[in-house]
């Protein structure tokens, strides 16, 4: 391989790498997008973490806008914040779901106990 050939190959490889791997802000926006979608899939998100969800969506949009405006650093910061907002909303929603399930179980135990007591005292 000639000296020129080697330089050319190195350049090509660098270019390919640049194309294949998204830049940090793009990667963070992708992660934020995933986090928002994940949180939205929980049933209790709106109820348990409406504010966090709104903030996450807003910041995600602002991150995309910042990227379009060429402010990569700002885009990355906003995307990172959107991620933690969405993640918090997600965990809160799961927590709410579990708490509801616990309440439901308590009620059903109460009513089962009531039934058992009525059954035991029922005239035969």
């Amino acid at each position: 391989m000639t000296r020129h050939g080697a330089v050319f190959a190195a350049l090509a490889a660098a270019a390919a790498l640049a194309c294949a791997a998204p830049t940090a802000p793009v990667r963070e926006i992708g992660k934020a997008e995933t986090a928002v979608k994940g949180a939205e899939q929980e049933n209790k998100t709106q109820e348990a973490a409406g504010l966090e969800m709104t903030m996450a969506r807003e910041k995600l949009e602002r991150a995309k806008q910042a990227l379009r405006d060429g402010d990569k650093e700002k885009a990355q910061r906003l995307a990172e914040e959107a991620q933690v907002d969405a993640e918090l909303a997600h965990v809160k929603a799961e927590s709410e779901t579990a708490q509801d399930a616990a309440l439901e179980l308590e009620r059903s135990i109460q009513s089962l106990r009531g039934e058992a007591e009525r059954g035991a005292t029922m005239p035969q």
Partner: protein
Amino acid sequence: MRFTNTGLCLLASGGLFFACAHEMNPNVTNAEAAYQMAQSDPLVASKGQVQLYEARKDLDQAKKAFNDDEDKEIVDHYAYLAKRRVDIARATAERSAAQQQVEALGERRDAVVLGARTEEANRARERAAVAELSAESLRAEIADLQAKETKRGLVITLNTDVMFDVDRSELKPGAVSEIQHIADALNSAPERLVRIEGHADSTGSEAHNLDLSKRRADAVAAALVANGVLASRITTQGFGDSMPVATNDTQAGRQQNRRVEIIVQQPHG
């Protein structure tokens, strides 16, 4: 000179003091406080370990950015991430506590359901045993009363010649032991209703026969009640000579027609 030196020193250290303590970004201070509190909560510290670790790194970044005099926007950004991660650590601990509660309650509910089922099964078994016992003893008791299984139930036919004097409706003293026997048999199946029907032969007027047969049925009913059978189970009726079981032309036939029938009805449902 010495005095001046000290003054300078004081001045210098005073300036240094101000430089170090130029007030820390309040968002960083808040995030740090939240982090410390979460760290001292054993549940949060264990369940939110990863998030708290990340929060710590963000806090350090925030302080570094602050000390490097970076933009407030950047310091705030790291403080925000740190605070959020502390919140996530807390929410994670709450979620895990709730999930554990769900698990424990689920087990408790299963236990309650199982207990209720066992109890219900025991009660049903008891009821069945009692019913079986009473049905069996009724069959045994009634076997020697010459009872007949009919569509209407078990029919015990009493020979009125043995129990009543002619044309009378008071039980003879000798009938008492038989009535007692029947009462015991009836009480071994206390849920069954009892019908008592009086019948006469065709001698005498129809009205008289109807009246006599009814009074004899009532007398048997009263004797049964006196022997512990619940009055509410019993109904009586007189049929006079309207339902003969044999011919009224022979003495033997007429004797068969003079009778009181006790019908133990089949349980309903």
